[in-house]
């Protein structure tokens, strides 16, 4: 007796393939836009590090959390740096982004060091730096969305 | 039950022993075809090999070979445990009850082996 389920799953596979192809085909973004979209996690991690720093200063989160968050952030930022280097986006977008990422990684390492050493002024300074980076990233995205 | 639908009321049904211990399912049902007389239910069958054959005969042979090579046959003596229909005490919507004690039937070979060789050695089991 032909099993109803195997019939149904082969139909699903067929439609699934069509859908994937359609989704990829209609993405006609420019390389610059595509790079910035893929860089969303960078903005998110900068904001996360800033919030983690603020919460640590307010004694809301333990030092171990700040340490592991900075490590996780650095891993993802490192990956983002690699992707940015490889992307075909124009230098007008690629270079400021690469700079932003390396500064964010430096700030992350600084925050981690300050938290572990319980150096509150140092941590506050890194938080301010991260806040600046965050507005820098937002400006970069706005400039890109503004441009045709 | 006077009149039964063998497929809905017996096949794949939960099998229990005298004191309602679950011991498997009716994986197979053997009919004895006699000349000039209606086919008689000879016995029910239980076991992975019986299930395998329902999927594909080759699967059954492959499983049989696997059993011998890995010495599984030392644990599970008979691949298919056949119970004469006369041992069936009752067929009800909930289960098929056999007039046997599950523990000393081949249906419990695996259960016994795992209990004695695995569960018994688990720390904290106050055996």
């Amino acid at each position, binding site marked *: *007796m032909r099993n109803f389920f195997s019939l149904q799953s082969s139909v699903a596979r067929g439609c699934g393939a069509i859908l994937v192809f359609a989704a990829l085909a209609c993405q006609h973004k420019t390389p610059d836009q595509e790079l910035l979209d893929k860089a969303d996690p960078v903005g998110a991690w900068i904001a996360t590090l800033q919030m983690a720093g603020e919460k640590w200063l307010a004694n809301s989160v333990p030092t171990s959390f700040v340490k592991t968050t900075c490590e996780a952030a650095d891993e993802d930022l490192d990956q983002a740096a690699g992707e940015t280097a490889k992307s075909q986006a124009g230098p007008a977008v690629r270079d400021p982004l690469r700079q932003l990422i390396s500064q964010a990684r430096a700030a992350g390492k600084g925050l981690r060091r300050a938290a572990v050493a319980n150096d509150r002024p140092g941590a506050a300074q890194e938080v301010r730096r991260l806040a600046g980076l965050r507005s820098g990233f937002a400006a970069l995205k706005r400039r890109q969305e503004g441009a045709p | 039950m006077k009149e039964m639908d063998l497929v809905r009321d017996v096949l794949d049904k939960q099998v229990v022993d005298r004191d309602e211990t679950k011991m498997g399912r009716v994986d197979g049902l053997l*009919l004895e075809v006699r000349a000039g007389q209606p086919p008689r*239910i000879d016995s029910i*069958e239980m076991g992975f090999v019986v299930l395998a054959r329902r999927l594909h005969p080759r699967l059954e042979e492959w499983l049989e070979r696997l059993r011998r090579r890995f010495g599984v046959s030392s644990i599970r003596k008979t691949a298919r445990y056949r119970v004469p229909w006369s041992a069936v005490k009752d067929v009800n919507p909930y289960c098929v009850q056999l007039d046997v004690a599950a523990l000393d039937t081949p249906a419990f070979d695996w259960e016994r082996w795992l209990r004695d060789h695995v569960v018994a050695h688990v720390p904290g089991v106050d055996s």
Partner: protein
Amino acid sequence: MKPAVVHLELLVGREVHDSEGKRVGRILSVTAEREGEDCVVREYLLGPAALLRRLGITTLRLVGFRHREPLRVPWDQLDLSDPEKPRLRCRAEELTT
């Protein structure tokens, strides 16, 4: 002649042809009755409707299945000498449903 033994679980779902080779339906249910100590087969139920009967769906409010009475084949009308290809001993029309 050693009495032939048939596995009911392998019989379920087999297609049945009548004496002239015409496709009649699939075996999907088998009814049986107690007879003294034994339990013997009464009828074989064929066709998709039998599946629905087996699932106990009497009223078909769900999916627009045409509710056809299952084809009832008395035990003596089905030749099981080759369990892979059960055959009717008569023509399909001669079966009284």
